[in-house]
């Protein structure tokens, strides 16, 4: 029962909506998102800045803050809806089962508390062990991410950006969670350090076997390390498929635009075209498909109706009127 759907699904987001209650009117930053994360996979989530990636990530563990609200939806983790949990149950799930590496990890460490204490407090909050054991465990974790345990008593400001990032990852691994949500874990870092950390991460993933939800707008990175990729636009998932499918054969015009605005490390040389126009204004969204005003293949129906996310091939979903519902397909 506790293991929930035995099909290998670890997290299932159903119809999730997140609103920001602004002064004038609510802004829907995440709009009816359905997303399934399989146990052991690395699922990438990409999209332009402001499309609601972080908002989605926060709401999984209910880390959203005012004025954000989750009016609808379910977040089923191992068969249990996180949104329905009471405070204590939620507290125990946090970090123990799912941990988060936040965007701007540089600011994620408390500047006036030593690294050791920041690692130990999370261990002690969830495990019934002695302080000494917790310290030993913390030392072990630091070593694994490539930081000398001698530096445990130092404070965050004494570390470089890349080291801080690794400390944050070490903290995320502290309780051996089943799943880690990573929100642009390397945005603040230069490319070399980014690759280094990503390599480390894959190594750790092999050791620990956790599931990753990796959020970034760096598609080339996602292409390399994730199994599947979801593309988000204006708070909605517009495409979901395996990495190769998304990178090499994108279906949604938006995905296409995104791919074209990135130089692919492995891909052939091509002209970077990008997407014209500006991201959708969530304060005043157009009726129909949010991407319609920027879309080169825009049709009449696109301006009127929002295309649902449908399965066009097994394991491949797109929300676009270019791909009509297969005959007899369910709504």
């Amino acid at each position, binding site marked *: 029962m506790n293991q929930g759907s035995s099909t290998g699904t670890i997290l299932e987001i159903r119809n999730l909506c997140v609103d920001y209650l*602004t*002064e004038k009117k609510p802004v829907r930053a995440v709009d009816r998102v359905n997303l399934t994360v399989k146990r052991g996979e690395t699922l990438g989530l990409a999209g332009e800045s402001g499309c609601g990636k972080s908002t989605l990530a926060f709401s999984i563990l209910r880390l959203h803050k*005012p*004025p954000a609200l*989750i009016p609808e939806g379910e977040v089923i983790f191992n068969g249990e809806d996180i949104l329905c949990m009471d405070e204590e149950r939620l507290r125990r799930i946090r970090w123990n089962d799912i941990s988060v590496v936040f965007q701007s990890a540089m600011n994620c460490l408390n500047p006036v508390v030593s690294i050791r204490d920041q690692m130990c407090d999370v261990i002690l909050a969830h495990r019934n062990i002695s302080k000494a054991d917790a310290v030993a465990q913390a030392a072990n974790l630091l070593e694994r991410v490539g930081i000398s345990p001698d530096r445990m008593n130092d404070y965050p400001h004494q570390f470089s950006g890349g080291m801080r990032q690794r400390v944050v990852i070490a903290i995320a691994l502290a309780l051996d969670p089943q799943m880690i949500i990573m929100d642009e874990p390397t945005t603040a870092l230069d490319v070399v350090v980014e690759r280094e950390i990503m390599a480390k991460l894959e190594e750790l993933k092999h050791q620990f076997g956790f599931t990753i939800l990796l959020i970034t707008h760096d598609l080339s990175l996602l292409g390399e390390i994730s199994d599947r990729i979801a593309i988000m636009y204006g708070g909605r998932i517009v495409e979901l498929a395996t990495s190769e499918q998304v990178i090499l054969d994108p279906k949604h015009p938006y995905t296409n635009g995104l791919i074209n605005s990135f130089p692919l490390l492995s891909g052939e040389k091509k002209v970077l075209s990008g997407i014209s126009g500006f991201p959708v204004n969530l304060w005043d969204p157009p009726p129909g498909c949010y991407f319609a005003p920027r879309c080169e293949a825009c049709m009449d129906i696109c301006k009127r109706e929002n295309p649902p996310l449908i399965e066009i091939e097994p394991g491949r979903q797109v929300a676009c009127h270019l791909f009509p519902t297969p005959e007899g397909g369910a709504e």
Partner: protein
Amino acid sequence: MSRFLESIIRFFKGNSPAVIGATIIGTFVLLAVFAPLIAPYGALERDPIKYKITDETLEKLAGIEGMSAEIEATLAALKGHGFEDKHEFLRTIETQTGTEIPLPLQKRIAGYSRHDPGHEPPSRRHWLGTTRAGQDVLSQLIYGARISLLVGFGAGLIGTVIAVLMGVTAAYMGGKVDELLVFMMNVVLVIPNLPLILVLAAFLGEAGPHSIAIIIGVTSWAWGARVLRSQTLSIRKREFITAAEAIGESKWRIIVVEMVPNVINLIAGQFVGTTLYAVLAEAGLEFIGLGDPSVVTWGTMLLWAQNNSALIVGAWWEMLAPAITISIFGGGLALLNMGMDYVSNPQLKGGGNMGLWKKRYNEIQQKRLAKARNDKELA
């Protein structure tokens, strides 16, 4: 002009501290400006002296030269009646007695029945009672507002001007000038200024309202200067200043035209804060007798109340009226300041939709918990 009005409306909208504060201050300003029209009496106008025959009067007059049984009977009959006019008082006695009273006796009767106006509790005639000298407390408050507000705003203005000059100059000049000015700010900040004000006032002897305003103004700019400096520094980094510099505008023009408008809310906050401080300090200084006691201000009213032992003899109104008035005015300034903080820093306010958020959040959570419980029962 309409832009100006619009920005004022935007400032007050949904900002209740600012509305309450501004209303209080506005009311006081109006009272001060129109004091002669509003105040029921003059500031120093005393209640007239009263003539009233009491047992004591009768005792003292008994058997005095020229006293007769008729006069005595009349006096006894008039016991307890108060007269405001001496002649009327004496004439009444004469007409009631029916004979003429010799002049020396008249003088003595008047003398022994004369009553100073004295403390009078709040009544229809004197809404807030009278002082020991028989002055109307309400009128004194209204007239006192003129000087007290002037001292407060004056000191606020002086302090703000110095703070702006120091802060903006330091931030803009940088280098040695900045270092020196910052040192000055920090020194003035750590040296407690109330004792300094006391010493200055003591050396100056009785300090009139002008001196008090100046002393307070020149000693309380340091915090504001520091805040303004750091704010200006961060604004200076922004592009448009760099752009203006590139065009080759003079430094001073940049300071005045480009920077000041960007820190205007800080400046306004500094003005309100210094004014508040000045009002408090003025009250204190005058209360302990360092001001000019012949000028009617809220502070000197406190001083006179204290000298008259108002609280001890039970004339609480003489002390509490100015005390509470100062506090209301100070509270108004503080609320306005809070409102200004909210505008320059909306995060602090949180009001408005925060309440709505909380309500919705609880509703949603309630629903989810109920659903969870339901599911559990079904399982």
